[in-house]
Every structure is written in C-alpha cells, then in structure tokens.
C-alpha cells in the first residue's frame, strides 16, 4: 500500500467523521433546547424525568451509550436492525448525549437573563412565545457561545468513539492502516486532521462571538 492509497483511505474516514459531526450538531442543538424546556418545566414529573435522563447521559461513558443504542434493540427486544443502523446508532447515540449537555448549557443561559427583561416584555404585551424568541433566545445565544464552543470542540474529538461500533470514521481507518502497515504515520495524520478541524471550529466560533459583540 503506497502513500497515496493510504491518504485516500484516510480522506474517506475524514468524510465520515465530518458527517457524524455535522449531523450530531444538527440534531442535538435543537433537541437540547427541547430538553432544556423540559428541565425547566413547572410540571414536576416531566422535570424529574428529564433530570434523571440528563444524569444518566452525563454520568455514563459515551462509548457505553453508543454500544447500548446499537445492540440494545437486539439484546433487549430481539429486534434485528437493518444494515444502516450501524450509522443510525452512531448519530442517535451522539445526538442524545450532546443534547443533554447542550440542554444544561442553554438552561444556564436562559436562567442568567435578568427577570427585568421578562417584565418589560410582559408590560409591553409580548406573549410567552414572543418573549422567548424575540427577547430571551437571542440574548441566551450570546451568553452560551463560549461553553457551546467547548462542547463543539469536544465533539470533533469524540467522533473517534464511533470506532466501538466499527463505523469507518477517521480514527478507525487510521488505526486499521497503522496496524496493517506497522506504521505510526497514519495516526499522526489523524492527529493533524483533528487539530486542523478544531482550529477551523475555533475560528468560526470566534467569528460568531465577534459578530454578537455589538452589545453587552
């Protein structure tokens, strides 16, 4: 196997990692908002159920959660899942795990908005939805950006955990080639890839933060 073939395979793995990354953010960010609403619900049973699930998702390894999502349907219910479920399990596992973290970040952001903002909106006649989407949400986004950046950067590196389901993302591919070729180079290439990926993420998030710095 020559260098170009190795690089080609690694690029294939990069594509898979990128796909996990994009889809996880796409699903977990809005899902996190719903979970945050449940967590802040005045309806106590819902609040406690959500609290329990957040505790599980934050309190157990993501790797274990991926295994449960993938093997659970068969071992617990005897359902054999179709072939695509390997990828499906990766996305489901990542999305719900990250949603739990995002939910708590959103909650901290929402709860940090001064009560005066709600009162001003109420007196002006804003209803609940208008108050949230026009007044609270935009201010929350600005406040949660730094911790969200942290999570996004962690996600880039966490995509490598998909290897437990032998889903062929970057890290899995690099490990296979390194083992087959008894050469550490593919692992270094993988490291450089994750590093550059995160540099781009950090750059983009910094730009967004700057864009929102027009007010305090």
């Amino acid at each position, binding site marked *: 196997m020559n260098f170009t073939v190795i690089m080609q395979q690694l690029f294939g793995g990069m594509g898979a990692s990128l796909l996990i990354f994009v889809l996880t953010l796409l699903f977990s960010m809005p899902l996190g908002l719903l979970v945050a609403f449940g967590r802040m619900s005045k309806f106590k049973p819902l609040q406690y159920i959500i609290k329990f699930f957040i505790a599980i998702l934050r309190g157990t390894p993501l790797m274990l959660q991926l295994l449960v999502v993938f093997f659970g349907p068969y071992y617990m219910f005897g359902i054999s899942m179709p072939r695509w479920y390997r990828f499906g399990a990766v996305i489901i596992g990542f999305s719900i795990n990250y949603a739990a973290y995002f939910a708590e970040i959103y909650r901290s952001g929402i709860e940090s908005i001064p009560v005066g903002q709600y009162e*001003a909106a*109420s007196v*002006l*006649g*804003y209803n609940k939805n208008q108050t949230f989407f*026009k007044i609270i949400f*935009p201010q929350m986004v600005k406040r949660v950006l730094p911790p969200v950046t942290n999570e996004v950067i962690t996600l880039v590196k966490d995509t490598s955990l998909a290897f437990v389901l032998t889903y062929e993302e970057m890290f899995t591919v690099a490990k296979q080639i390194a083992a087959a070729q008894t050469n550490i180079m593919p692992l270094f290439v993988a490291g450089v890839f994750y590093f550059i990926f995160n540099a781009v993420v950090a750059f983009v998030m910094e730009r967004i933060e700057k864009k929102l710095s027009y*007010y305090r």
Partner: protein
Amino acid sequence: MKVLEINHCNKSFGDNEVLKDISLSVSEGQVVSIIGPSGSGKSTLLRCATMLETMDGGDLIYLGDYAAKADAEGKAVYSDKETLQGIKKHFGLVFQNFNLFPHYSVMKNITEPPILIGKRNKEEVYAEARELLKKMGLSDKENAYPCELSGGQQQRVSIARALAMKPKILFFDEPTSALDPELTGEILKVIKDLAAEHMTMVIVTHEMSFARDVSNHVIFMDGGVIVEEGDPKELINNPKQERTKAFLSRFQQ
C-alpha cells in the same frame, strides 16, 4: 372617566402582608405620586397595577374593564388571558433599571412593540418613534445600542418605548433611583413635560420636591397601607399624620 381603579387590594408574600386593603383611583390627566419609605409596599402596588404581581384580593379596573374582580369573599379573580392582553394596551411602565432590550438598537426597542404587538403600520410607527426621540433629545441616537448610552439616556429611551404604545396611563417605578443627581434632573424634566401635556401618570418616587411640583395628588404609604393622601403642597408642607411628619422631616431642609 376613571382610567385606573383599584378597590380593596390585598397582597401577601407568604405570611408577610405587603398591601392591606388599598384603594385608589386615577382620573384622566391626573398625575399621582406615591411616596413612602422602602418596604412600604408602593412598588408592590405598582407591580399589582401593571399585573407583574397578582393581587390576592380586590378589583383592578382599567377604563371600566375588569382585569381582576373580587368575588363574594373578596378574593381577586382575574379575567381570561385575552382580556388581560387587551387591558395591557392601556398602560405602560417605566422601570427603575430601564430594562431596555440590550440586543436591539434604540429604534428597534421603541418600534418593535407597536409593530409586533400593536400590529401597526411600520412607516407610521417609525415616524412616530423619530418624533418621540426628538422630544427626548435623542435624535442622533436612533441607531445606538443601550450599552452605548448613559443611564439618563437609557431611561429616556425607555420612556419613549412606553409612549410608543400610546398608553392611556403611564406608571413610573422610581424612575430616577438608579441615576446620579445630574441625570435625575433630565428625567424629571421629561416627566414634567408629559404632565404639561396632561398625560395620566402614577409615579413612585423618593423625589419629594418633584412629587410636590408635578403631581395633583400625593399618596403616602407605610406598612402596606395608605397613611395619608391629598393635595401635594398641603401633604408635603403640612402633613397631618405623625408617621408622615416623621418621614418627611428627613427630606425637608
């Protein structure tokens, strides 16, 4: 015509009775000042009137429409959401801490509520907002953000924001308490101008001489009750009740 009527209002926080059987009415064009020590319940009364707090007992009536009506036991029963949203159009509130929307420009702070809530024509609202800003001496600030303004300027924007909704009555909750004496003057001038235009207003304030000069009626509250009320000059210069005398003696030099 009574713009606002509050009858037998009661309000407790837990065991703490904050308002005890308060009644008050405000006619069109009247300027009422509410004075009294901290913790006397004057801010709570304002918050009940603006529905930021719910009254435990009593009536709350705007222009004949009941926001809350006492039942046979005197317990306040609030009207349905839709009625309340309608009644909210009758009043505006200016906060001690301004509570402008920091992510909106001055212009958007003033124009979004009439457009979004009042469903009014955009051009018309913008034209009126420019008029209001001119009146507030802030014509050059329409694209500024609240964080770029002084406290006095922010408070003037928040008065403009309240006026843009064309309220029938405007409440002020200690509008100058977060400002230094110099900035206090500019806000008091704005309120005086509004009084000259016969805007109906209820002002909770610690500025005694201002209350005396601007209002037609002064209410002195302490311990959740109205201790004394009446003509501003009479009440502030010659209070009848001992409690009022004690309170005012610290203000009169």
